[in-house]
């Protein structure tokens, strides 16, 4: 630090007569705290009300349980059961089945979604590809369609008697498997989510490509680098950070899957009410009226998601540091 800075610092005391302009600055910095807090207050209050209190509240609920036998007259008595609800959830095989389904779902969904989004973003960025503006619009459009409605439309497209896909396959003498039955139902769910999700990720990566300096690509082109090589060596490394983070959001989104399977379950018996963890939580809370174990399962799920996100972020930091 240099001397003048220190002097200016001293000037902040009220009794320094030489510090007229700086004193003005002091009198202006104080209400700034107040004003900054006025601006941030709604967000903080809402954050506490919508995030913090519900988490604490359901954390409390997850440690409570109804005492069996103690309430002979139908009055439910809340007693402290410690981690009882957690062990109950963790010992329940349907919880592990739903978690297994979720793992399979996320392991297929996220890589396919991100790789396709990368491919489409790179293709949309090729100068020689035709109909780019139209394709971009068509790919982005499903983002605006509510997932419930997407599931409804695809649900009908999975019905062989109605679907144009099956009708087309039939004219070629092909037999398409029915997706809404048995094991293939997972494919049906993944397809709906991919249809709705690829577009948004594609556009994010595409706009990220737009920020790449034109001179760099022109220089590569002049040096005789062809388009696939430009895509591989210049464009791809450029969008990797954005891909990791949109991938992270896709993971967080994937772990919360609910609307699509819930909607499809009204068209097929292959999706049970405990198919995914969040569906199971819903069933516990509303169909079984067991808020305690629903809370415990919610908290396990939230913790697992945050842990996974931190792992991805940590991995990305580590990779970035190694590259630097």
């Amino acid at each position, binding site marked *: 630090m240099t001397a003048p800075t220190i002097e200016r610092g001293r000037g902040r005391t009220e009794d320094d007569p030489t510090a007229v302009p700086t004193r003005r600055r002091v009198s202006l910095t104080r209400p700034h705290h107040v004003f900054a807090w006025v601006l941030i207050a709604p967000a903080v209050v809402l954050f506490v009300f919508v995030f913090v209190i519900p988490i604490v509240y359901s954390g409390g609920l997850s440690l409570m349980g109804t005492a069996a036998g103690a309430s002979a007259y139908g009055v439910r008595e809340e007693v402290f059961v410690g981690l009882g609800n957690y062990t109950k959830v963790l010992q329940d095989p349907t919880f592990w089945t739903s978690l297994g389904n979720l793992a399979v779902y996320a392991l297929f969904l996220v890589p396919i979604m991100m790789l396709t989004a990368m491919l489409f973003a790179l293709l949309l960025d090729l100068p020689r590809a035709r109909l780019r503006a139209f394709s971009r619009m068509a790919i982005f459009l499903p983002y605006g369609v*509510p997932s419930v409605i997407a599931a409804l439309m695809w649900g009908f497209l999975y019905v062989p008697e109605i679907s144009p896909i099956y009708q087309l396959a039939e004219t070629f003498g092909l037999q398409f498997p029915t997706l809404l039955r048995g094991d293939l139902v997972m494919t049906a769910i993944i397809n709906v989510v991919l249809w709705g999700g690829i577009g948004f990720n594609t556009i994010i990566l595409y706009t990220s490509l737009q920020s790449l300096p034109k001179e760099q690509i022109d220089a590569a082109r002049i040096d005789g680098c062809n388009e696939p090589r430009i895509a591989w060596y210049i464009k791809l490394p450029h969008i990797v950070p954005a891909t990791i983070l949109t991938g992270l959001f896709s993971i967080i989104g994937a772990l919360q899957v609910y609307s699509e399977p819930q909607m499809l379950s009204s068209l097929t018996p292959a999706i049970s009410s405990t198919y995914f963890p969040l569906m199971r939580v819903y069933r516990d809370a509303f169909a079984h009226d067991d808020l305690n174990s629903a809370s415990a399962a919610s908290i396990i799920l939230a913790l697992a998601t945050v842990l996974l996100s931190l792992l991805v972020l940590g991995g990305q930091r580590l990779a970035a540091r190694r590259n630097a």
Partner: protein
Amino acid sequence: MTTTARTAERAEEDRRARETVVRADRGRIRKPKESVSLVHKLGGILPTVVLLIAVLYFLLPMVWVVFAATKSTGELFSTSAFTFGSSLIDNMTDLFAYENGSFARWLGNSFIYSIGGALLSTAVSAAAGYALALYRFPGKKAVMVGLLAGVLLPTITLAIPQYMLFAQLNLTNTYWAVLIPISITPFGIYLSYVFARGSVPQELLEAARVDGSNEGRTFVSIGLPLLFPGLVTVFLLQFIGAWNNFLLPYIMQSKSELSPITVAMFLMLNRGGSEPVLYSVAIAGALIAVIPVVIFVLVLQRFWRLDLISGSLK
């Protein structure tokens, strides 16, 4: 001369001009770069073909629903997918008459949640993002950490805890039960923060201070106009998010007169399992539910500042 005749003449001229070019081309000696130009051509065709297949895939359900909405349930099962049926008007009448004409109300609810929620959360995000980007104040670090945690938290997992709290406060079965949770989005605040940091220079604030403007006035007349393009994007994202929201209103509202269209469509299809006649009504409903957002996405496309998001992810 009529316009059509003029256009026809111009087209004729165009055709002739093109023929001349083709003839001239034929006369020219081929360059020896034959193989390169083949790769060149393939390099243009292959990406276009892949993109066109993608376009077909993404447009398929949208195009299908337009055709399917014109069919009765019988026609749905018996006619080819891309032919028009005969009962578009019947379907729409049935749809808007369903449950004593509730459909219009559900549509209206969706607009209330989307517009109200997006306005609220954009306002909250703008104020908070501006404060975080341009002021130093005690507790800022704690707010930033909370925000980051909020971005990583699985919001839908919190829906049931939120329901429990809101039920205690007798807030369930009100519009607020949905509007309050969607009015705070850590990601929206984060985007506003990134945008404010990039578009509102600190010097401008200081200049305003020297000129005697108070902080509130500076925010309204200097900060907000500069933030506006970013705020439009936040608004659009929140609007779509709220329009698509299903679980939150599904949990919070047990009265159907407060349901948005997503919940209503789910309940309709759920009943359709036992009453297949409802299928054609549900498909008509899907068409109506898709139209506003498609228009929204297309018309407002140039207002989307998505570079904002890709830029914020670095």
